[in-house]
């Protein structure tokens, strides 16, 4: 009577500290340039080495420019990327350097290289580490002090979270994607609705999702407050992982699959919380506020002030003031300045296929700056192999180089103050895409439709 989460957690307990947390064994640590320099400094202070360097994989992604990757012009960002390379060389860690075919956003590269596998415990100094849970792993974002713990001991001290199952049942309506499912759940649960819980996504809608869709769903767990979003591995998972670079091969593969098939929540497993949503209630969505939970279906209006609880009105109004929107306003038809396709949320091949399916044979609106940024060099190659780059080019779009790009303002792809961006990324926080930038979160289909018309557009109506 164990949940999927319990099965993986219990298999990784080194010890339960008396009156304290669990010392949990970590199978895989990912490192990027932003949250690790100070962790390596801690090792140097204490004069210790990396305990299991072969279980650590590093790559820069946040500071990486998406227009060229010969150099980083910003001296501080450049130093951070160089520091990661130096630390990896010094401590004997595998490093996928900027501009090489192995590089990309960690949360895209990990699953696509099968470095993230079912049953694993995976951590990284990045809240979107929840992404890797889609392969059937416990994957959690951690802080830099915790990165140092894992580098030093391949373990971490964690209190066991409660468990929540989110069931989504039925067939998604036309034009509705995994991104819309996640945005819908956030609007229902709020951005702290899953705080303190590890989430498992289940139900027929999830079972029918592609691996890319599942990765998008798990990616956004943290935006509901949950550090981890697991999906039980199944034939879709195995088919996705089989043959990938670091997947077990031959007999080892068969043996692994046999073990992975045991990774599901038992029928009589009890969750601390369980909610169920119907796919037919979900439509293409957009956000209107400055947290990802402040969202609506694309053809709905922003709530009127009366519809907001009294103690939340002040925050509601200050969000709208920043966004330059009004209560009750319809956002469909609002002019947009920037369109961003990419990030660890929607930077995978399926997202580019979806985008291309909308823009094929049409032309990009002239008033719009569009950044189309693959999540990895592998994704970029696949885009080219499938001829998607030609479709994009003919429609007036340019395919850029793998990077976190405009998801957060740490590289040249910043949205200027006051400009409105419609984006497939994960956060619409104040200043997230650049100081003063305004962000609407949406699916690749909605962003594509909006890039063609130059205004917020429902892809079903294009």
């Amino acid at each position, binding site marked *: 009577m164990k949940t999927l989460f319990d099965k993986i957690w219990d298999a990784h307990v*080194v*010890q339960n500290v*008396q*009156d*304290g*947390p669990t*010392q949990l*064994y970590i199978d895989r640590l990912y490192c990027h340039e*932003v*949250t690790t320099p*100070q962790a390596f*400094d*801690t090792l140097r202070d*204490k004069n*210790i080495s990396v*305990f299991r360097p072969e279980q650590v994989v590093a790559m820069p992604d*946040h*500071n990486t420019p998406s227009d060229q990757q010969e150099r980083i012009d910003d001296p501080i960002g450049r*130093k*951070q990327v160089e520091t990661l390379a130096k630390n990896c060389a010094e401590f004997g860690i595998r490093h996928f350097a900027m501009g090489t075919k192995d590089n990309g956003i960690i949360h895209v590269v990990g699953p696509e290289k099968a470095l993230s596998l079912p049953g694993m415990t995976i951590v990284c*100094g*990045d*809240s979107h*580490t929840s992404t890797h849970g889609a392969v059937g792993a416990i994957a*959690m*974002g*951690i*802080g*830099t*002090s*915790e990165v*140092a*713990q894992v580098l*030093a*001991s*391949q*373990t971490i*001290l*964690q*209190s066991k979270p409660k468990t929540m199952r989110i069931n989504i049942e039925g067939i998604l309506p036309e034009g509705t994607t995994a991104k819309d499912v996640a945005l819908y759940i956030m609007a229902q649960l709020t*951005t*702290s609705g899953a*705080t*303190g819980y590890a989430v498992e996504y289940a139900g027929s809608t999830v079972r029918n999702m592609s691996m890319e869709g599942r990765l998008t769903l798990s990616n956004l767990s*943290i935006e509901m*407050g949950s550090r981890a979003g697991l999906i039980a591995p199944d034939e879709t998972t195995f088919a996705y992982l089989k043959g990938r670079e670091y997947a077990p091969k031959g007999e080892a593969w068969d043996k692994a699959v046999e073990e992975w098939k045991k990774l599901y929540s038992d029928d009589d497993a009890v969750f601390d919380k369980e909610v169920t949503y119907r796919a037919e209630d979900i439509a293409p969505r957009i956000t209107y506020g400055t*947290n990802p939970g402040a969202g609506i279906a694309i053809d709905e209006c922003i709530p009127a002030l009366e519809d907001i609880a009294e103690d*939340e009105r002040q*925050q509601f109004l200050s969000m709208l003031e920043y966004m330059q929107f009004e209560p009750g306003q319809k956002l469909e038809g609002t002019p947009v300045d920037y369109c961003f396709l990419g990030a660890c949320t929607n930077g995978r091949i399926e997202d580019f296929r979806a985008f291309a399916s909308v823009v094929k044979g049409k032309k990009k609106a002239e008033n719009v700056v569009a950044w189309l940024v693959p999540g990895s060099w592998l994704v970029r190659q696949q885009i080219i192999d499938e001829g998607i780059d030609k479709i994009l080019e003919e429609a007036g779009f340019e395919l850029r180089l793998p990077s976190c790009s405009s998801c*957060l*303002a*740490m590289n040249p792809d910043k949205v200027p*103050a006051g400009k409105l961006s419609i984006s497939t990324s994960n*956060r619409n*926080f*104040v*200043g*997230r895409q650049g*100081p*003063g930038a305004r962000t609407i979160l949406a699916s690749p289909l909605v962003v594509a439709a909006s890039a063609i018309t130059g205004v917020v557009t429902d892809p079903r109506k294009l």
Partner: protein
Amino acid sequence: MAKQKFDIIQSTCIPIQIDNCNTDLIIPARYLASTTRDPKFFGDAFMHDLRFDAEGNAVADFVMNKAEYSEEPKKGVHEIIIGGQNWGSGSSREHAAWAIAGYGVRVVISSSFADIHRNNLLNCFVLPVIVSKEFQQELFETVLANPQTEVKVDVPNQTVTNMATGHSESFEINGYKKYCLMNALDDIDFLLENKGKIEEYEHK
């Protein structure tokens, strides 16, 4: 970050009445590219884009810039933040905890914290204290009515007291972490002492 032993902290407070105050607000992304560990660098960046406008001028009506709350934290003064609910949501950046610690704050009180940020605070020797929504509201009201209001956080007894009203609540912290905070010990040292257990696990 400096490791200071925790015992009893009694101090005036900075009320930051923002719900869902995410770590992008606590420290904007452009400060994350630094490889330094200088507490002042991060302390200066704390709540930067609410404290300062695009030209770098102090935003007069932001709480941290008001005369009553602008004094830099020191013993007994502004060592405690009263924060809105879901404090520290969003990004896992420990830089947010470094910013709070670097500014000189030792305790953040809220009715709820995001999970990753809460761990980060503890690892940076800043104590997150969870209180009821009612108590949080009372603290906001008293501190806003009288900025000289002191709050007492008693770590050994796990209580938090509004000295103006005498109202008190107890708060949770696990015994292990409490011991670490009271003795200024960090997790790495504990883990390194347990190498044997880790190797034993690996050979299972």
